[in-house]
């Protein structure tokens, strides 16, 4: 558990450092996630019951909790947006819907196309 937590923190640390070092357009923790994935893939160990998985489980189970402080911050800002509420809400929710549906449909279609081709090939 503790060793797993150290591994997670070290990956984040490396991610944050590399992002700043190379000026990457990504958050440090996302690069840390890639490092962690690389370690797990190289080790090839069962990630279900390992030390890292044990440390990760409570963080992933309560991921929603960790967004609360940032979310409260935006409630404070909401009152300042009143003047432009129409273009902002239309742009926000319209574009959210378009992004969600287009991605979902494109991937669904592509998976069918490639599965079909694979099925014919075998």
């Amino acid at each position, binding site marked *: 558990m503790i060793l797993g937590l150290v591994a997670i923190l070290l990956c984040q640390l490396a991610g944050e450092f590399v992002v700043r070092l190379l000026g990457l*357009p*990504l*958050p440090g923790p996302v690069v840390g996630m890639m490092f962690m*994935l690389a370690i797990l893939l190289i080790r090839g160990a069962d990630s279900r019951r390992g030390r*890292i998985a044990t440390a990760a489980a409570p963080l992933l189970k309560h991921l929603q909790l960790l*967004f609360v402080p940032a979310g*409260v911050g935006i409630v404070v800002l909401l009152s300042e947006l009143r003047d432009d509420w129409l273009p902002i809400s239309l742009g926000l929710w*319209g574009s959210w819907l378009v*992004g969600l549906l287009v991605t979902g449909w494109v991937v669904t279609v592509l998976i069918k196309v490639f599965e079909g081709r694979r099925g014919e090939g075998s």
Partner: protein
Amino acid sequence: MNWAESVEWLRTSPLLGITVTVGAYAIGRWLHRRTGSQLAQPVLVAIILVALFLWVFDVDYADYLIGGAYVGFWLGPATVALAIPLHREWGHVRRHAIPVGVGIVVGAFVSVVSAVLLVQWSGGDELIQRSMAPKAATTPVSIALAQTLHAQPALTAVVTIVAGITGAVAAPAVLRLARVRDEVARGLAIGAASHGLGTARALQESPREGAFAALSMGLSALATSLIVPWLVPLLLQ
């Protein structure tokens, strides 16, 4: 007895912010279980309760963050921890490499274009258009992109987080209505439109959906930051 001094200690101690945050989240979870309502996502309930608390007791957001920051800190390690479901699903990721890659690039592209054009059509000025463009990327990336676009980072932060909350509350139901049933497609769509907050919800739907949402959040952040700097100036003309 020293009431004023004790209250002052409480106000500036991290303990208060942490207790209120975790307590509000516990109520959110209880309400979610009790009502079984999709709308009662613990994160949304907790945000509303904490905001109410700050308003009723007249606490500044900065004072709340003395404790709140301790909770928010763990978002970084939790993002790293998303590698674990991703590793478990790695076989599926490799098998669907092309749908994943194409879906994410298309998703990032339409998110940026539709955000800018919808604001344009509904009479929003250029500053709002620029501030809305990167909202599908995860918060630290969208704020950084807002800065490179000379937009309003505070507005970008708001719309990014609201896009995330919307996904946590509504994305699974909307995808069901749109007949997107494949878990890979659902996860990718949620991560592309609602980044980490959507991923938190997708993880509760299924481990596979969560893994693909995590992957999509990371790759969409990358795709958005590669697309936004040249696409947004084109759309504004």
